[in-house]
């Protein structure tokens, strides 16, 4: 299994509070991703990183921010949690890409409930 650890695995938080999810990798992969997965929508990209301090927005980035200060850690912050952010969040990592892009490997997910 790829060395990816997400924490926490489960969290319940109140509307309006900030929340930070952590993704830690031991593979030294360049690319890291945060997805959310909701019934009927599949996996949707929130933010991704293509290197230390290099990040960009994905399809559903509103209300989220990210940071990557070192290769192994990618943090996702919900600045002020809302009920619509109740979801399962997955981190993924991928090695260097060239003419062919390599596959991504996923963590076990964080189930977040905003009440």
């Amino acid at each position, binding site marked *: 299994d790829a060395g990816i650890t997400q924490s926490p695995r489960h969290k319940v938080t109140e509307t309006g509070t900030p929340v930070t999810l952590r993704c830690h990798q031991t593979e030294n992969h360049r690319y890291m991703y945060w*997805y959310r997965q909701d019934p009927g929508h*599949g996996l949707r990209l929130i933010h991704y990183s293509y290197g230390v301090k290099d990040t960009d927005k994905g399809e559903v980035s509103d209300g989220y921010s990210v940071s990557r200060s070192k290769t192994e850690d990618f943090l996702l912050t919900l600045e002020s949690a809302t009920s619509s952010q109740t979801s399962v969040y997955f981190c993924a990592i991928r090695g260097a890409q060239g003419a062919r892009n390599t596959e991504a490997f996923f963590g076990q997910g964080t189930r977040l409930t905003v009440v």
Partner: protein
Amino acid sequence: EDQVTQSPEALRLQEGESSSLNCSYTVSGLRGLFWYRQDPGKGPEFLFTLYSAGEEKEKERLKATLTKKESFLHITAPKPEDSATYLCAHSGAGSYQLTFGKGTKLSVIP
């Protein structure tokens, strides 16, 4: 716009009844077509990567194939343990992203 469409949304098979899952895609310059399996409560598990039309990959009862517009995941003589959601994704030229379809939920009945 890059898109991935999977069909059917759900598929019920009897044990031993072979079938195929479809993944239709549009992308500017395919750099990889990926298949994943996802069990309830777990993260997607990588199965196959395909890069060129005509390419095929096999693993146990699963075989993935690729054309210029579609990929198929063929399941031969499935067993109940093959029950899962199967996800298709692609990556295009100049993009760091993987774009996923919504998946096909496969149920194999004993």
